[in-house]
């Protein structure tokens, strides 16, 4: 059940989603769907059957996505990244029919012109059949168009076990591809058994960004990390300044065509956060840093450094390509002794 809030206050009841409507017009609404508000009495629950949940679907038959309470004796799926007991789970498998999700499953979010949508997602490993284990869009119900589609594919794109994200435009042309290696060996630690955070930012000027972060490995229901337990690997997909084909979005949409391998460890979704504004945090303090300015030449590459003893030098930031102008970098002086020295190397 979503929590809806105005500005930084988060309410905890589903009914607030309805009565908060007038606030949406002021453009200061946050909707948080962490699935913890659902009363899952029979292990799984179709959220579209719960009034006021914000969830709907446009197909018939068994739902594609259900809320699951991960408590014993359920032990074939992973824990939520935040350790909470409930999340959304895809109920499709290559071992049952239909093998693929066959309907749109929608979640109502505020009408966003400027703001963001983020979620946590653990994709299934589709080992037996080719397929996408995750397909989502941000949708504009007014025009009936998707703003973009984000896909995770484990197999057969463009090679077996690529384990990667793509962002598609409204014509399904690829706008961006993730940088998880297209490693065809299924034994290798690619993207399986990991949690990702997907962030879509709408800038209010007709453009949007998509960023996908690997936030760490999954743990099984006993709290034990699965085999590919690298710590968080950071950003794995970046799309910046893409043209938004709709005026706004108001629907988080799980689109048809997703599946999982054999029904074990299906795709999980948790903590959907939608805001129709940008939320800011308070800055602790602003203090002086050391600004290092240096002339550059086009074609040269520069590395600013500091030293506290005049002999051992450490890098300040990364390499800087020269462009013929004077460039500047800033080093934090927190904990720096008196007399810290700076230099810039030119390659």
């Amino acid at each position, binding site marked *: 059940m979503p929590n809806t809030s105005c500005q930084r206050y988060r309410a905890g009841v589903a009914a607030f989603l309805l009565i908060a409507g007038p606030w949406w017009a002021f453009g200061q609404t946050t909707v948080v769907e962490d699935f913890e508000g659902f009363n899952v009495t029979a292990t799984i629950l179709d959220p579209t059957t719960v009034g006021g949940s914000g969830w709907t679907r446009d197909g018939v038959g068994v739902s594609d996505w259900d809320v699951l309470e991960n408590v014993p004796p359920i032990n074939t799926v992973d824990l939520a990244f935040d350790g909470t007991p409930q999340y959304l789970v895809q109920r499709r498998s290559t071992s049952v029919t239909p093998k693929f999700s066959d309907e749109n499953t929608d979640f109502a979010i505020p009408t966003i012109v400027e703001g963001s949508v983020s979620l946590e997602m653990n994709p299934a490993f589709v080992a037996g059949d080719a397929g996408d284990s995750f397909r989502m869009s941000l949708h504009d119900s007014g025009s009936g168009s998707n703003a973009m589609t984000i896909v995770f594919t484990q197999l057969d794109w463009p090679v077996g076990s690529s384990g990667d994200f793509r962002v598609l435009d409204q014509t399904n042309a690829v706008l961006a591809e993730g940088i*998880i290696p*297209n490693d065809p060996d299924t*034994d*290798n630690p690619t993207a399986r058994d990991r949690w990702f955070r997907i962030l879509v930012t709408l800038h209010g000027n007709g453009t949007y960004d998509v960023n996908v972060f690997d936030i760490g490995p999954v743990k099984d229901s006993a709290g034990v990390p699965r085999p590919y337990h690298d710590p968080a690997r950071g950003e794995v997909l970046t799309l910046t300044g893409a043209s938004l084909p709709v005026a706004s979005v108001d629907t988080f949409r799980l689109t048809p065509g997703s599946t999982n391998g054999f029904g074990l460890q299906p795709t999980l979704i948790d903590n959907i956060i939608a805001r129709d504004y940008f939320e800011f945090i308070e800055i602790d303090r602003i203090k*002086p*840093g050391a600004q290092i*300015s240096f002339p550059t030449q086009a074609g040269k590459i520069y590395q600013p450094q500091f030293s506290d003893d005049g002999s051992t030098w450490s890098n300040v*930031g990364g390499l800087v390509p020269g462009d013929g102008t004077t460039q500047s970098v800033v080093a934090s002086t927190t904990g720096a002794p008196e007399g810290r020295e700076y230099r810039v190397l030119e390659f």
Partner: protein
Amino acid sequence: MNTLHRVSTILCLCGIVSANAQTNVIEDFESYSVANNGYVDPTLIPDSGWTRTGIGVADWEVHCCSGTLGFPTREDNTLDGSDKFLVLRRSNPGSSPPGGGPPARGDDITEFKFPVLVEGTLRFQLNPANTSADPFRLALYDSGTGKFAMQMVYTESRWFHPDGTKKINSADFRVFDHPGNPIVSEIQPDGEPDAFDRWYDITFTMNRGGTFDLEIVDMGPTAPTSMTSGQPARGVLASVSNQTAGVLGVDTFHLERNSGGGGGEKPTMIDNIEITRVEAITVVGTDVGTGMDVEYPTTASAIYQPQVTDDLVSGVWTALGPLVLDDGSTQSALSATRGAAGRSYRVVVF
């Protein structure tokens, strides 16, 4: 090798001589103090340049001594006949590698740091193990951006070719560029005996501007024994040029997790890591002034975007660095102020 300046220190910076002079880093493992048939975790040696993330027994250790092994059937001699080398101490379950045991595959990230290579070469010798796992997984990283320029995997068996065929005992190298696209995927004919029990010379060349070249050369069978055909050196197996690195330089030799050592006999060996690079000069005319250090609190796994504007009225804010995915620590966003007055800052949280 004989054109390089070999010194006794483990990590040798040969110093700045003049602009465009060559600086060489040589890690040949000979300066480690290792008893015969002994092992030393190089990450425990101060200033060695080696580090690892992980717990328990190290994945990679310096071993001695080539040619006088207590387990002559387990390990090979170095190609150059020197005593010491780096060896992967992992094995399949149930086997008994010297001092090994579970985990069956590497569970550390083991790294060797070197001065940034913007233009020049990194070269090393490799003798991969015979295993159904991947006995060798390497990435070359830029620690400044946290991005890799190239990843390389050697796989003895059971990998899937892009054409969909499953390769059995193909014993092959695969190389991926920065976006993760395969740029080398099959360089040996399938079948056994094939590529294991052989020494390879691998040369990575970083080109100015963010591209790289790579060459993989088969230097010949291992000694004293080789389970392969014993063919002499087969020469250049793969050579690619001007591949996308995605970074301007690399400074980290990054051995990935999940490498296996087969039955524990004849594990993967690495020797003679050499970096030859164009030396830098110190820029004249550097000025140190006052910038801004914007500190803000974070919570675990939230995403942050510091922003800056020079004109609050305009409402136009510019990202101050990349998005930050953080873990609850206090973060800093650093901002140059040269030529700007009345600069304002804010931090968006997603």
